[in-house]
């Protein structure tokens, strides 16, 4: 069954790039422009994974993440993982990965595949 991934980033070029990469690799991709948009889309499409930028305008990501507890989230940020941890962003159980921007295309695909495969087995 085709998996759906929600890509949330305020930068259109990043949104489009990630969408292209994931679509070529057989995923259905929905995009959102910020945290609030993300919450809206989550209810509409019920994605299997959310790729979420950390620094975005609007409601802070910390608050957005708290409202999504049943869907896997992978952060995708220019912020370092150590900084994100310090902000207490990586404590929630459904946060499964952290992609450091600029990401490597094949690495992104490998890790997304791994995350979604785990889901199938689990």
């Amino acid at each position, binding site marked *: 069954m085709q998996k759906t991934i929600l890509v949330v980033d305020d*930068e259109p*070029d*990043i949104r489009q*790039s990630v969408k*292209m*990469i994931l679509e070529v690799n057989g995923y259905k991709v929905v995009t959102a422009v910020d945290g609030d948009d993300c919450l809206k889309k989550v209810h509409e499409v019920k994605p299997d994974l959310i790729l979420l930028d950390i620094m975005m305008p609007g409601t802070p990501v910390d608050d957005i993440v708290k409202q999504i507890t049943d869907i896997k989230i992978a952060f995708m940020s*220019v912020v370092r993982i150590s900084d994100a941890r310090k902000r207490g962003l990586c404590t929630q159980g459904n946060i499964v990965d952290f992609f450091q921007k*600029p990401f490597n*295309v094949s690495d992104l695909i490998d890790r997304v595949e791994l995350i979604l495969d785990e889901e199938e087995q689990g």
Partner: protein
Amino acid sequence: MNTEKFDIKKFILSKINRKLTLLFLIVGLIAPTIAIYYFYNISVSSFPEGMSGEQGLLLKTITVMIITLIAINAAIIGFFMSRSISKPIKELYNATREVETGKYDIRLDIKTCDEIEELAQAFNRTTAAQQRLEEERKEIDSAKTEFLSITSHELRSPMTPMKAQLQMLEEGYFGKLSKKQKDSLGIVIRNADRLDKIIVDFLDISRIEAARLKFNFQDTDIAQLVKDTAKFMEGFAKEKNIELVVNVDELPIIEVDPDRVSQVTRNLINNAIKFSAENSKIEITAELKKEYVLFSVRDYGCGLTSENQIRIFEPFYQVENSNRRKHGGTGLGLAICRGIVESQNGKIWVESKPGKGCKFSFTIPLKPVRQIKPIKILFSHKGTIERKLREEFKTMLGPLGAGEFDELKSKNALSRDDLVEYIDSLTDQYIIPEERGLDFKNRIERILGYEKEVINEKEDTPFDNLGDEVLGRN
């Protein structure tokens, strides 16, 4: 604040007090003596038949008493007057000492209605101006670091879609590429990566400068860490068929940030690989010293001239040589290594001879430094200070001075303690006389911004060993 030095000044000031008091006492003695002598003569001559012995004695006693009283009064007045003069001077003196230590917020409140009050007001205006400048300097400094951090983040954001698209092109997401297209794309990707590396290094530098560099301290098996790092680098070494020889002591488990230690070691090994000839070897060692672990990476590559040894830790400094382009790199790696090592109170230095290879060494203390200090990497005052130190070496040691200085610098032994130790060794070997050594130390401390030592003052002090004490205390 230095209480000992106040004593010297107090002593001098009390001397002024004494001198003035003495002056008043003498004037108080001489003036009434002369006056009363005349008065005595006149009164004696006014008795035509001459005075009886008893009357004469009484007159003499009264005369002496009056003289003594006037003298004592004069001395008391003199004492208080001199104190009223020296007190504001003392205050001014104390205030200048405070300013020397960097307290620019000090203001004087002297109301003597004379030149000293004017002087105090001028002093207040000067310190106010200094305070303003100091604040501005701090603002500019933090603005610089902030600017670096923000621009680096801003520069990094466009890198993300750019690199993603380039990689997609390269991996054939949009169809197969011709050889020429692939070559062209290769150049773009290589340079995008290089640009990204520079940005990452800038971010690191802004963190080091703002003391925001994070250290995740954890108990670490240093020996294992060095072995793992060397293993990680083996892949790169293989390309040039270079052998990595790891030589580590039995090392205790200490609390460090393994990632940072590994980052510095990786960087040094990476440099060593870059500058080694094919089929050579690189030796990596770690040994336990008293209070630190000493790491070193030795290669048998092209080596460094003494000029390059000095400048190698400066940002963007790259050794000029024919195949430098091929080495790539940002020119910030060693500057960042220095920042990381120094923010843990460690040291990093290089020993080398052209053609014989280099040995880079660095130290990590056994106990972690949790309070991270900001370290200046870009636009540091280091250059100016070192130029001044070099000049001082030349004036103090003659033509040999410059060479000696360069040698110390190449060992990165230019901290105050290192220099004091060096000068002590000179005086111990009678290369320069003690007096000159002391002078040398003082001059160097002045350049390095330590408390100033006034040589001439020493001669006024009654304490024989004061000089040593003062120097030993810092």
